């Protein structure tokens, strides 16, 4: 597992596209921080915070889905996967190694860019609130991780990189862009009394939504979601929330590990 982890990390870090990510993040984050500089308020849930969160929601999941699915699809296309199959390697170690290595690599470049962008805007003369920065940072890193995992899941069953790309984009479009539209459409046809429980349940189905809601709650803005979520919020605002998040995280990981493992095993046997 550690070997896969290390080799994945090394391979990613040495790719040229990796450095283009560095440029992308620095550019995006610096821009956002500069925007934030021009805004009068620095803390809490403001329009700048909303904008930053939404841009993160647009970019990060898409790239992470593509990177995650490519990291496996690539090996399948160039035959490395066939080679690996000849080794006595446990599939779970492969999956975890892949995710771990890829996440470490992406985390490094994101954190580095975050630090650089902060330095840039500090030099220019901006000021931030510590809590706000940490909230943004953790929000982004969580998105990074969750969507990498989903990406690896996609990679585990696609045949080609082209397929990986198209499925990633489709999933991204569904989870991020038309999720509310789809839900509004579907829930419009169910009895009214079902809407509240379904919305609550579906919140946990889409990790992007859950992370966004958790982010808003962490900025003490949970009340904006209104009366219907007061009971949910009262859970998520207490220290119990950590437990819920951890539980969700474990469930999410085990489901996706099982899924990608199963797909890879099935593929091995073919």
């Amino acid at each position: 597992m550690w070997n896969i982890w290390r080799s994945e990390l090394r391979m990613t870090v040495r790719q040229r596209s990796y450095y283009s990510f560095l440029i992308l993040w620095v550019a995006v984050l610096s821009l956002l921080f500069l925007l934030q500089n021009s805004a009068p308020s620095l803390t809490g849930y403001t329009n700048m915070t909303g904008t930053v969160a939404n841009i993160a929601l647009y970019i990060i999941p898409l790239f992470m889905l593509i990177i995650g699915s490519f990291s496996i699809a690539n090996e399948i296309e160039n035959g490395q996967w066939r080679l690996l199959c000849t080794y006595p390697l446990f599939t779970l170690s492969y999956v975890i190694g892949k995710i771990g290595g890829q996440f470490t690599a992406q985390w490094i470049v994101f954190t580095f860019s975050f630090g650089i962008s902060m330095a840039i805007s500090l030099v220019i003369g901006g000021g931030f609130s510590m809590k706000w920065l940490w909230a943004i940072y953790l929000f982004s890193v969580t998105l990074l991780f969750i969507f990498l995992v989903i990406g690896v899941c996609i990679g585990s069953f696609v045949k080609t990189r082209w397929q990986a790309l198209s499925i990633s984009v489709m999933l991204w479009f569904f989870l991020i862009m038309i999720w509310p539209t789809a839900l509004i459409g579907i829930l419009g046809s169910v009895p009214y009394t079902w809407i509240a429980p379904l919305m609550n349940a579906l919140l946990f189905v889409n990790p992007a939504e859950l992370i966004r809601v958790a982010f808003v709650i962490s900025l003490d803005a949970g009340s904006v979601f209104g009366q219907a979520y007061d009971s949910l919020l009262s859970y998520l605002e207490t220290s119990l929330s950590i437990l819920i998040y951890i539980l969700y995280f474990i469930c999410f990981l085990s489901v996706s590990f099982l899924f990608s493992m199963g797909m890879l095993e099935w593929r091995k046997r073919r």
Partner: protein
Amino acid sequence: MSQLKYMLLILVLVLLLPGETDAATLQSKIERAVPGETIEISEGIYEENLVITKPITLKGQGKVLIRSCEEQPAITIKGEHVSLEQIQVEYCGEGKEATAISISGSKHQLTDFEIETKRYGIRLDGASEVNIQDGLITGQRKGNGIDLWESSHNTIQNMKITRMQDGIYLEQSHQNTLRQNHIQGSRYGMHLMFADDNVLEKNIAQYNMTGTMLMRVNRVQVVGNDFSYNRDNVNAQGLLIYFVENSRIAENSLTGNRVGIYMETSEDNLMTNNKVMDNFIGVQFTKANNNQLTRNTFVGNVNEAQAIESSNNEVSHNYWDASAKLDLKGKGESILPFVADPYFLTLTADVPEFQLFFQSPGVLLLQKMLKSPADQVLTDEAPLMETTMEVERTETSASALWAMSVGMIIVSTSLFIVGRKRV
């Protein structure tokens, strides 16, 4: 003989003692006082219920505490020209109407006092020209801090009120002045119902369920107040305006509320020069017509404005920080109108559950695609290029931020180097 002496002694004692204890009570002092007299109360705890009906002044020397758990108020003030100074009241009556101080009559003065109560703090019933100032009221959110019923021409200023149901409640009470009061941790900071021509000036209402509620009032002046951080409750707002006419809301600061100004079924009000900052929703109108919203500054609100079923509102010359601005004529106005789309509000009005999508990227997309008809949107035809007032910034120390930045760079770089190494 000695027996007789003994009996006489007892008789004298029996006759004197009640007189003596009576003389010790504040009530007896009050009863003996002539109008206009000032009674200086020496330091101590008095477990009494006082009734004051004549024009006298009660002044505490040092820490004077009146304590009562009776159903009747700890202090009842009637008549005219009663003054209370430097007195503390601890009231633990639990009746639904129980109040620490009950006031009727006119021209009373309450200064420099403290009230701790289980229910109401001060109730004014049919009182006028009463002046309440420099006091402190704390409660248990079960009664109103200062409650005015059919009481007009009163002044309440410089009060600190915490943990009450409504900090200051006015009903059918007109032409009162509330100035520089500070209310927090209560349900509603100031709550006016059927109360006309009142003035709310320079008050601070923070961390309440709602800063101020104006309900069914006319000609109220709300000027220079600070309604901020009223956001914890799912129905919170800085200022709620319901069934209000001909009122003026000016120069107020509304920061960090769930909704800055919520207005419903109200007409002919003027909102100007307010600073609406960092609210989740800046202003929200429902069935609000013919109101004027001008020269306000909207900064940092997640959603600046939304309105449904509202028409003929004059919205102009406001500063909206998030809108695109282009000044061609050099008049300090943008030629690009600011438009607030009501789509999300319409959506959530029918199904409040969809509020979970607040500012979700998908909903923003949907809103852009389904442009609402022009007659339904709230439009500022001439938004300002510059804010109408100074907007201050708060910052964390740069050194801590530098540490965070450098720390992130170092950690990631070292991991990067480790990662690049050949195994």
